[in-house]
């Protein structure tokens, strides 16, 4: 058996951190795209779309992320699609993130005074012009801090991908623990790396909230 020095453990954990970061980025971008689509459906005032998004959000926020990962992993296989842990994790995290992001963004758009819409209508702007020039620029201001705050949840969410066999930071920690039998040290290091990833994001979210001077929102 190889012996691992502390540096070996740390080096291997840091190598695995790349996949945590990459998966987080994929889940965040995917979640943003799907989430944006859902947001527009939600504020469209078409009953079918509104109900669809409501049920979608309820389903993804009312079930454990771990269940969503399992269902993505085993469900896609049933459809005859050969899924790797990569695909399943990216898909489940994307859908999970989209439900929360669209919920956040809808709140930001709806928090704008109704007069903004009415004034735009009076000025003869159509729906897209109103969105593009009036609503979105203002909503963006309120949306940035909670969105950055939610990215912390995504990074932490990727840890669950370890359970379906995706080798990222947590999985690497488990494997190194099995090799070194030093759980205290290994998991403390794992936690510290996650902290170093997440804490700056948390602080950025708080800072932006103060700077953009928006009312405190619970993430």
């Amino acid at each position, binding site marked *: 058996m190889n012996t691992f020095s502390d540096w070996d453990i740390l080096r291997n954990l840091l190598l695995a951190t790349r996949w945590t970061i990459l998966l987080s980025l994929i889940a965040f971008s995917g979640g943003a795209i799907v989430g944006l689509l859902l947001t527009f459906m939600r504020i469209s005032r078409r009953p079918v779309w509104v109900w669809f998004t409501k049920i979608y959000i309820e389903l993804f926020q009312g079930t*454990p992320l771990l269940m969503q990962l399992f269902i993505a992993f085993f469900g896609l296989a049933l459809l005859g699609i050969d899924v790797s842990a990569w695909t399943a994790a990216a898909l489940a995290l994307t859908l999970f993130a989209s439900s929360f992001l669209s919920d956040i963004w809808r709140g930001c758009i709806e928090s704008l005074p109704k007069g903004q819409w009415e004034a735009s209508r009076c000025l003869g702007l159509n729906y897209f012009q109103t969105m593009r020039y009036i609503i979105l620029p203002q909503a963006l201001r309120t949306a940035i801090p909670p969105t950055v705050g939610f990215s*912390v949840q995504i990074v932490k969410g990727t840890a669950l991908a370890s359970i379906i066999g995706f080798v990222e930071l*947590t999985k690497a920690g488990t494997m190194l623990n099995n090799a070194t039998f030093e759980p205290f040290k290994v998991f403390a290091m794992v936690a510290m790396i996650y902290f170093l990833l997440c804490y700056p994001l948390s602080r950025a979210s708080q800072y932006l909230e103060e700077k953009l001077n928006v009312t*405190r929102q619970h993430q």
Partner: protein
Amino acid sequence: MSYELNFSALLEYQDILVAGLWMTVKLTVITTLLGILLGILGAAARRHRNPLLQYGAKAYVELIRNTPFIVQLFFIFFGLPAIGIKLNEIEAGMLALTINLGAYLTEIIRAGIDGTPKGQVEAARTLGLSNRQIFTRIILPPAFQRVYSSIVSQCIIVMLGSAVLSQISVQELTFAANFIQSRNFLSIESYLVAALLYLMLAFLMRFIFNRMGAWAFSRKEKHV
């Protein structure tokens, strides 16, 4: 390829599912109560005069909020025995859930406390109330009411997070689903049923919390 979902085959495992569900409910009830208690203590520590308590509570909140729950769980279950603290899987699971919920609730309740008008504390002090009395009678109740919906949401999030306890073989709902699919290979059916049960638990929790909230807060107002 088409696949026929076969839910009826799960019926013979219903005892296991019910036992798992029951374990999840028990874990949730206990950790919710302990977590709320810890959150209140944490929020009290955050505004304590002693800087050690103040910054200790702050460090606790930041550390927990910026690391994944599964790592906290593994650290407690696998890491703590290495320094002589041995816990069985249920104790470790409950401890991890409580510590996790407590950190979030500390932050939520603190936010509620920030909304307390200064005049109320000053008035209470003038009336000769002790610091403890001011916290438990003047500051805490309205703060709790102010952020009640956030507290409820966080408790539900932690209930859903308890699914991760299956990884240290606590025999809760997700563990039951894993067990069943390892027996009959009906993975998607098992997980769909478990997901549905979690969804129902989430609804039920929100319902009970809202009822309790309506009862507690209206009763208080009647007295006033």
